[in-house]
């Protein structure tokens, strides 16, 4: 019983992903790790507060965008799926993925949207 509990903890630890910055992610990739990681950040915005540098492909089937992580590092992220719902309105973006040949490829995107449950402006 205790053995199983310990096995659970060990498995959890070895499977756990982590929140890192793009810098750390790059370092991990350079050190040969291909573990999937989480990066938290925002979409790049201009001075007017508008989201810029989001490029859906011509047929809208994939999207690439520039994300700014919490250390203000910009990184182009490639996502092989159509642009997710409510992407441009998101307050925060979490990308789950990693560097593949110097390109950051996201397998999954989680969004934190201010408007999801509560309206905050008229």
């Amino acid at each position: 019983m205790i053995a199983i509990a310990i096995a659970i903890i060990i498995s959890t630890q070895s499977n756990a992903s982590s929140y890192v910055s793009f810098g750390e992610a790059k370092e991990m990739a350079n050190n040969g790790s291909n573990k999937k990681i989480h990066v938290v950040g925002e979409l790049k915005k201009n001075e007017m507060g508008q989201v810029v540098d989001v490029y859906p492909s011509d047929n809208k089937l994939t999207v690439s965008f520039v994300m700014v992580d919490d250390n203000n590092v910009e990184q182009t992220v490639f996502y092989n799926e159509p642009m997710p719902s409510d992407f441009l309105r998101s307050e925060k973006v979490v990308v789950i993925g990693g560097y593949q040949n110097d390109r950051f490829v996201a397998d999954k995107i989680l969004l934190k949207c201010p408007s999801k449950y509560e309206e905050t402006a008229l």
Partner: protein
Amino acid sequence: MVHTGIGNFGHLLIIISFITSLMAAYGYFKATNNNEIGNSPWIKFGRVLFVIHGLSIIGVVATLFSMIFNNYFEYHYVWSHASKNLPNHFIIASFWEGQEGSFLLWLFWNALLGFVIVKTNKKWEAPVMTVFAVVQAFLASMILGVVFGDLKIGSSPFLLLRDVISDPVFLINPDFVPKDGTGLNPLLQNYWMVIHPPMTFLGFACTLIPFSYCIAGLWTGQYKEWVRPALPWTIFGAMILGTAIIMGGYWAYETLNFGGYWNWDPVENAVYVPWLIMVASIHTMITFKKSATALKTSIVLVITVFILILYSTFLTRSGILGNASVHSFTDLGLSGQLLIYLLFFLAASIFFAARVWKNIPSSEKEASTYSREFWIFIGALTLCLMAFQVIIPTSFPVFNKIIEMFGGLSTLAQPADQIEFYSKWQLWFAVAIALLSGTGQFFFWKKMDKEKLVSALTFPVLISLLLSAAIFVIAKVTDPTYILILVAGMYSVVANGKILFELLKSRSYTLIGGSIAHMGIAMMLIGIMFSEGYSKTISVNTLLISKEWTEEQNQTNIPLFLNEPTFMERFQITYKNELMQVNGIPGYVRKSNLEDTEDPYYKVAKQQLKVENTVYAETGDTVYVQSPENFYYQVDYKDMENGKEFTLYPRIQVNPQMGDVLSPDIKKLAGRDIYSYVSVKPYLEKDIEWGEKEEIEVKVGERFFVNDYVADFSGLERIEDVSYANLGPDDVAVRANITVFAESGEKYIAQPIFIIQNGQVGKQPDVIKEIASKITIESINPDTGSVTLGLNTTQKDFIIIKAIEKPHINVLWIGTLVMIAGFIIATRRRYIEFVKMRDKGVE
């Protein structure tokens, strides 16, 4: 007009409910300490105050409902959750879309259950209701909305919009009331939103009852007696919470397109974990009733269930999940209050249990391997381990926060592939559960030794192996893991089925709940194994759809051109129509038959709208579209093996709050579901790339060709107004009426418009996606009595779909129903036991 009265009234009721819950708690507390029962003064005091408390909660609910029904958009809660265009059942659902409303729902259920406890108990009323009243005080404080200096207690649903949102409009006109609310999120406009949240919160409320009995027992020294009245409610609560969980799963499967019915999202896990412990506690309580063991375990588990519910409330509502979950509530700044709520009950429970721990009787004898206690205990333990495995990663955000508080840095995140990570553990536990629930039943009903066990087990083992073997061959199960799951599941079904049969034979109908519930669980396991393990994409495609897609994406999506049959597996499938739903018209209406007006909820019929010989609207009639954000794509299926036909209508919701939502449509066939959805949103009209314009001159009554279809120009018609321009007295607008005849007798109406306004010419082309054409009036030639039309064509209209086969998923849903039935039967049995003892004056 701003109705301030009703909001103040509602707020007053909240304050009353808060104060009365505290007073009720005090009264019942006094009564308990004085060992009062029946109609003694303190009990009466507590009871009257609890009734006032409950009635004020009902009053708060009624007040908020009436504000929502009457569209009082001057209130923030009403404005942000309701709107005028919602049908009644969604108006009800908008009540609990927000945090405050869902707290109210919880308070409401607790109050009702409190009334039931007051009504059905004699001896237990005072201590149990003390706990109830304290819980209610905490919950009411969450919506109290009282501010002392910098300290804000609770968030009231009765705040005026102008007090929440700072917008310049309120400086100019403080009495500004928005014309419409922002409405219930279209994604949540689904019947599950009407029933799932009340079910979930009833489940939450039910966990309070066993907890209260347990604390009451510890408090009053009735260490054993609390189990009997608590047991039926525990089983009932597990039934309700289990049903709520499955409902959520079915909702996700059917509408939300999360890719399945279970996603291991922290919000889902937060309810799954207490449910597992709840089921474990049922088993230890039953063991205790049979043989006076496992009492301490039962106490710990029952307390844990309630604490876990508070913990899950904290996780989902405090904002701590933050980046970890896609669907937690927004942070209302209540995290401190929620934490106090959680820690208070944790500390209080530990206090009550620790104080008397050494007085609680425990059985000294070692449980032998051939005793039922041993088997049930192992089963309960397995359930606890399952819960433990899920709660650890789900709590990562909490660990991170705690380490941060002590100045450290922790960046733990959920495993990147959640589904695989959780499934691989939960699967093996589930196999163990199936084996234990099959075997445990034999020990439960009979005294066992080695020989008896062998003889009892031989039959079910043999039968289940035979059945499994037959299924391997028919369903071609070859994966060793799946074979094991199948055998374990079959074994549990057969073994419990045998017990069921024997109980029925001996006419012990009231006792069959357990074996039925176990059979249900085992069926669910088998259903999950097949539908997930053998889920198969059938939309296999060899065309290249997009260079930017991965090979896998290109191979698993099929492009369907309008009216062009395509083969998919054994089906011939054809994309037939882009449709919308119109109120008052059964089924769907073709989108191109509806012309937009300025109001998105109203459209004009471009031709007669007829369903099966009943005319619902004539040309030019205005129709009401309650959900203009929903588009349906009719795909006809023909089974080439048996000629059977069916139609699926996958949906795309252009949701301004959440972007596009792709919902599947599911065909339930014998043995499998065909789960299909439009995987990429079709082009909007404005995004279409048109070919070069071709100009032709046509006279009234003349026939011509549009994109190879025959078209008939029946004449020009002067129209009085157009939606996008204000026409002056000297301005003219004319419309050409053109009918296009397409495949299989279909007719499409094109109505391009030509305007002369202030001497300027305006052209409004009409696009008919179905024939991939745009028709414009280029000029009107009075001398020849003709018009010159501009024709553009484009690629034929198409959609891209993905279709997945989910084999035997119905076994999962049927298993769910069987499990629920088992729970209900067991609840009834245990409740009757309680009533008998109570009426004897024991309880």
